[in-house]
């Protein structure tokens, strides 16, 4: 009987072992394929290590948090999370898949996501305001700031006020008034510009009304309102009335004014912003990228 050479026999044995290993299932419970995780926590094939249900608090810094039932697999190396409540928290629409691993979530959101197992917390950091919920919060803050921009006295502070100023020319300015917190009345007398008085009223948290009269100047009044993602102002300066407002429609922010001024701001993925604006007889288109987003209330233009 003819005997095979030793090298050929070893090669045959090697190939047989490779085929045998390749045809069988791996003996270890490695990371489960992403497509399988995407189906369901229950439908996914169990790993060799027992999976554990975890109550995880998902926090978006500065926005809020949500408690979800997650699953820890493969001795804590794989974390599977329900996508819908997390997407809702960050302001995104329905997720494409029901469950995501931590890595998939990081890729999908495009921001820093930190898993703290000792705290059972998943923290989403969005310093560049990429996520819709972060942008919405910024809009609310901006609207609130605009409403209170004319308010000289913070709400909650009350009492009389007095001020006297004299310069080296001998000119004087006397300021008197009283604030109730939600309303302020003040009168002033200047040796240069004459007498004036103003009243500020904040009947509701997001509504402010002011009125002022002064010698040698037209009467002035304004009403500013902020409701959610919408801000509006009516300014009367004798004899003109100007209306302006801004609102957020998903990724689009619209600002318009009766003085033939408007701006459309589209907030794209990552930190891309595109603005189309018009003021007077001039129109402009601006494309911006970076962490410093342009104000949606400023008309783009070449200065």
């Amino acid at each position, binding site marked *: 009987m003819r005997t095979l050479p030793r090298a050929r026999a070893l090669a045959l044995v090697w190939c047989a072992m490779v085929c045998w290993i390749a045809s069988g299932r791996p003996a270890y419970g490695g990371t489960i394929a992403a497509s399988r995780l995407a189906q369901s926590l229950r439908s996914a094939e169990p790993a060799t290590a027992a999976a554990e249900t*975890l109550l995880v608090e998902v926090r978006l810094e500065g926005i809020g948090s949500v408690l979800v039932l997650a699953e820890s697999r493969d001795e804590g190396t794989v974390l599977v999370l329900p996508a819908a409540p997390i997407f809702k928290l960050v302001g995104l629409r329905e997720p494409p898949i029901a469950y995501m691993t931590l890595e998939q979530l990081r890729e999908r959101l495009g921001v820093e996501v930190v898993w703290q197992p000792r705290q059972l917390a998943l923290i989403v950091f969005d310093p560049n305001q990429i996520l819709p919920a972060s942008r919405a919060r910024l809009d609310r803050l901006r609207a609130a700031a605009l409403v209170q921009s004319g308010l000289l006295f913070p709400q909650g502070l009350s009492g009389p006020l007095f001020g006297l100023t004299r310069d080296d020319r001998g000119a004087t300015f006397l300021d008197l008034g009283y604030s109730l917190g939600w309303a302020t009345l003040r009168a002033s007398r200047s040796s240069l510009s004459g007498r004036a008085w103003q009243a500020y009223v904040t009947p509701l948290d997001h509504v402010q009304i002011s009125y002022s009269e002064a010698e040698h100047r037209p009467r002035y009044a304004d009403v500013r309102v902020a409701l959610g993602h919408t801000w509006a102002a009516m300014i009367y300066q004798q004899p003109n009335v100007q209306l302006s407002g801004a609102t957020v429609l998903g990724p689009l922010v619209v600002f318009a004014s009766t003085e033939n001024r408007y701006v459309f701001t589209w907030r794209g993925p990552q930190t891309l912003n595109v603005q189309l604006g018009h003021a007077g007889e001039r129109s402009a288109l601006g494309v911006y990228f970076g962490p410093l987003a342009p104000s949606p209330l400023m008309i783009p233009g070449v200065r």
Partner: protein
Amino acid sequence: MRNGGLGLGARRWLGSALAPAGIALAMLTVPAGVCRAQVQPVVELKDGYATTTLWNRSTERMRVSVELRHGEVVDGKVQLGSPVDAVVSPRVFQFGPEETQILRILVRERVEPGAVFRLVTLFEPVVPEKPAEQPTGVVTRLDFATRYITKVVAP
């Protein structure tokens, strides 16, 4: 020859009597020094949900297992009952010296106002696979598991 001291027999007798007493004393005192895990004595449920913190104040890595059970006090002793239908997260984990772990509890069954559950927390030191080398080649080790039974109350 008597020199006024203890004889050899008396010394042996004294040694044989003191050695077990010393071991017993060490067994009584050592657990307090070894297992210094901390749990909150009372945890309050709000809408079936509660969080608490566990501390490992010992110098060893600890394996912890947690379960929530029904229980009652009979003759001044706590008798544990059936497990509560709840998510206890995490149920089993390990943590090192000076580490803390947040524990979240979500009770799925109906909770009556004033209900008291028992949180059973078992702390066991993680035994290293290879003990420290000794010149004699003989190593003796006493491992103490500590179980705390604390209250989870629904106001």
